């Protein structure tokens, strides 16, 4: 499995304009050989899901720093389900208080990278997750 084949959607939802983290991770994933589609700012959950399906991505990375994650993430996860796309794994990065991490995971968010996380860890996690997912799709 070569990384060039991994496609990831890096997305910003809502009005949150903090894009430093999203842009850094996008750049790091590109440097790691992945194909990155960046949504830009001010997206609704609906258009993020639409883009993810259209672009046939392996994984969605959501960056939120405004504190709205517990309101916006359930909407996004529901939207994926409604579109039968909830097999696309979702990860979240940003300003996430420790107490909110289990709440996000209970919504089926696969991993959370709070402020201070290492970008290399996030890149490694994404690679592992996509490879496992592809293996299991092939097996079934």
């Amino acid at each position, binding site marked *: 499995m070569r990384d060039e084949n991994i496609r990831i959607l890096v997305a910003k939802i809502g009005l949150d304009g903090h894009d430093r983290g999203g842009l850094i991770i996008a750049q790091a994933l590109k440097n790691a050989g992945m194909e990155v589609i960046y949504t830009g700012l001010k997206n609704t959950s609906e258009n993020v899901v639409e883009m993810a399906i259209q672009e046939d991505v392996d994984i969605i990375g959501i960056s939120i720093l405004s504190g709205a994650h517990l309101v916006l993430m359930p909407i996004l996860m529901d939207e994926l389900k409604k579109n039968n796309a909830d097999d696309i794994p979702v990860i979240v990065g940003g300003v996430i208080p420790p107490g909110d991490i289990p709440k996000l995971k209970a919504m089926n968010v696969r991993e959370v990278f709070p402020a201070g996380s290492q*970008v290399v860890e996030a890149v490694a996690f994404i690679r592992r997750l996509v490879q496992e997912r592809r293996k299991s799709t092939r097996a079934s």
Partner: protein
Amino acid sequence: MYDGDILDEIRKRKEEWEREIQDEQGSVKERKEAFTTLGEIPVKRVYTPLDVVDRDIDYLRDISFPGEYPFTRGIHPTMYRGSLWTIRQFMGFGDPRKSNERLKYLMNSGAPGLNVAFDLPTINGVGSDHPLARGEIGRNGVPVNSLEDMEQLFDGIPLGKVSTSLVIAYPPIPCMYIAVAEKQGFRPDQLRGTFQNDSICRDVGANVRVVPRRAELKLCVDVVEYATKHMPLWYPISIVGYQIREKGCTAAQEVAFNLSDGIEFVRAFIERGMDVDSFGPRLSFMWNAHNDFFEEIAKYRAARRIWARIMKEKFKARNPRSMQIRFHTQTSGVSLTAQQPLNNVARVAIQGLAAVLGGTQSLHTNSMDEAMALPTEDSVKIAVCTQQILAHESGVTNTVDPIAGSYYVESLTKDLEDEAMTYIEKIEEIGGAVEALETGYVQREVTKAAYAYQDKVEKKQEIIVGVNDYVDDREPNINLLEIDEAFERYMCEKIEKLKAGRDPSAVERSLDKLREAAFRDENLMESTMEAVKSYATLREVWDVYRERYGSFNEKAHITGL
């Protein structure tokens, strides 16, 4: 500063000293091969008078006395011996009534400068009842959807007697503030404070864009033109480097990008027909206070020197006050860590000290819990006390600019000045700050610097205590402020109630007038004022602006990658 004989002697002794500290192989064992500032400026082992002299730093020309051109040592002759800086804590969340309580709490706990943050739906001109507002209402600031919310926010606070900073751009919110003051019996010429009103910083630093860039600039110029005529005590714009620094640029870039932003505005004011000395003394600035102590101090000094020369030489200002950088500082939010949050108290104290030694006029010190959420009252109290300790216990306020004359700081000030000037000239070549944003140049430079920094952190070339070294796995045990989610519904219902209770024909008339003024390209302050006084909502006013200028197209402007 030194005569030739003494310099020759110093030069000779320095060469001897360099030889003496070397081992047999001719090298000196140190912790790192090369030392640099946070912004990658090389730092030498030791600085001497030679660094000042060899770089042609002239005391009278480049440093001079406090309160004298080029103001390197500060804008006031007596600085903190005369009066201390203003403790100005940024605040705003939840219900306007709740923010009103917090404002009063801050006023009573020794932070007399009010500094109000507005939530994302408000600063983006959409309001609480817009679909994109979900999850954001009252979260990073106070929501203000109409004059009614503004009245509640400042209820019982006599606006003619306080100094208020409103962290927002464009006419609607300033108009609401002036309208509330009038209702309390104060005239615009009695009001003291600052509108941030810098569309460029909000664009590049915070990605707040409502209408296209040139139109945003026009709306900000409207506010300044109005205030220059009617609000002589007010600072109608604060040219802000804070946010772009938070986004990851270096100290030298912060100076350069922010002063380019200032140049763009000054040009726009002059094009509008204003005399440089009519608005020059009412310009204010805002800077970040980041981790590298000496680099930050040098940054404030370099910025003052560059701006003084730009205003005098480029824009031909005659009033010395037009050449001064009056500034507010906020300690760096991005430098705070969610890990071991109590450590942030120490970071903030060091950053605050840099701002004070750099000659700030007002200061916001961040609270230790802000890497995770908005601060609680207890943590705000510690942040305020940190400033009181700096002011009254540290002794650094006893003399003006005690750091001047440090060979290192004077040399570093020159380094920052030179690097910043190179960027400023580059941006002028591109066609100014707005054009440099349109081409994506500034955004790419910022992302590059942010990425380089993250890379150094991951390689442990930069150590962040508790994050990539000295890690403590125990969960932080502090209480965080939470926003009640039923509140979102409440704010939307409040808009419906307002609309049901107001005079619809008055609203319609005022919005029609606003539309006519907008299409005639007039200054929109008076017509916006009338609209907000008729209780037109923030969103209704912005809808008229959007009708005239169109919305900013985010998809066409994905930059920074």
